[in-house]
């Protein structure tokens, strides 16, 4: 009985998950990191590996609407989940308001943190469409940026919130 639930971790297994609205089936080792599956198998290289241990947020994605560090998610825990990566935000060539605001405010420099930052901001604006500066800072607090000094990033998120409210 219980034995039947066992998986061989040295063998590839089929894992289905919805990524940016499309159902995908990959063959992966169950303990492979979701980050690696996204990058190496699905070619979605937006999520970056900064630290590999939960300390930088550059690998952030949405997993069933929760912002998580994909470097700490074994793909088996993402089975049948709904994943959104930075690649899923724009509609074709039409950038998301957040992406445009980051461009305009200089919220991205080297760009390593940017996909995670934008997803964290997106996640925040869904819960709090009109965040205060404090709430923006709190919402982005799990994402490290070594370039911008954060001010432009916070401005970009505030600008995106204003534009979404006006739209």
């Amino acid at each position, binding site marked *: 009985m219980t034995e039947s639930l*066992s998986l061989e971790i040295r063998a590839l297994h089929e894992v289905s998950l919805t990524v940016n609205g499309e159902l995908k089936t990959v063959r992966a080792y*169950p*303990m492979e990191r979701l980050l690696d599956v996204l990058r*190496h198998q699905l070619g979605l290289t937006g999520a970056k590996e900064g630290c590999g241990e*939960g300390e930088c947020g550059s690998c952030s994605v949405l997993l069933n609407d*929760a912002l998580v*560090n994909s470097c*700490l*998610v074994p793909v088996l825990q993402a089975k049948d989940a709904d994943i959104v990566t930075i690649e899923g935000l724009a509609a074709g060539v039409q950038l998301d308001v957040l992406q445009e605001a980051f461009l305009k405010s200089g919220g991205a420099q080297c760009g390593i943190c940017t996909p995670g930052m934008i997803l964290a901001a997106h996640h925040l604006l869904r819960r709090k469409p009109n965040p205060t500066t404090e709430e923006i800072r709190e919402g982005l607090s799990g994402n490290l940026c070594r370039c911008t000094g954060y001010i432009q990033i916070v401005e970009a998120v505030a600008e995106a919130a204003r534009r979404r409210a006006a739209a």
Partner: protein
Amino acid sequence: MAVIRDVMPAFQLFQPTSIADAQKLLEQHAQDAWVMAGGLDSFDWLKDRIKKPKALVDLSGVEELKGIRTINDGIEIGAMTTLTEVVRNPVIQQKYGLLGQAAELVASPQIRNQGTLGGNVSQDARCWYYRAGWPCYRAGGNICYADTPVGRNREHAILHAERCVAVNPSDSSPALIALDAKFVIRTPKGERVVDAEDYFIGPDTDITRMNILQPGYLLTAIRIPSTWAGARFYFEKVRDRNVWDFPLMNVASAMVLSGDSIERIRIAVNGAAARPLRLKAVEDAVRGKPRSPATGEMAGRLAVQGAVPLQFNGYKIPLMRNLVKRSISGVQEATWAS
């Protein structure tokens, strides 16, 4: 491109869907088994190949372990409930805000979304040497690398150290002790319910473990009785940065006043010893006293009695004294005379 795809040592992986199956698997594989909850602590140990279990029991498919429900007297929080759910739960916000405050100060939003309450209270020590795989006492060896004149021990213990000077790094645990929570454990012999403070153990009991879980045991839920619902709460965490960092120290108190005087109180501190400490002697000393700076100071002094600093953590003694004082008489009165 070279891609190292199988970063983990080989083990058998189990994904049970019920508490009964999970517990049975843990019993079957006994000391060879490892429980994986949110995986934040587990993943590091396994990736670094420092812990090498033969069987991994992933709890993510056990629905019975998730969620917060009202029970006869208080609430019950499933072990697999995420810290974010704890923070956002309206009943916790209204009645047991102490736990919500503590959980909200853990790490970062991402980590609170993934990490579970059961994992947070069961997490292992964060001592650098131990985490890097050094063969110290806690790892089964016969030396402590932190307790030497040059050891990196700024984060380490000032109380109840015994060979190992590591501290318990959990933020939620002292809040649960202050709320008089009960931990529900499924064992091979049936269910066992223990007081929060008795869940944790120090090196004098077992130097290789942080809690009473034995092979075959599963923490299934944490119950918070209504005893302290709506009491006056205080939680403070001191850390180097405002995100990610583990507590250098934290304090949690629950207090009921009658007029100006302290009718009932519970206080716990973490980051001072290998287990979160309930400050029973302090509670007894302040009961019936006015909630005043003088009482707070007396409590702070009493709390650090017997504290022994290491080379680089002497600051923890005044820190603990002041945190305990604040937890009783509040922040406005925080300056310490002398």
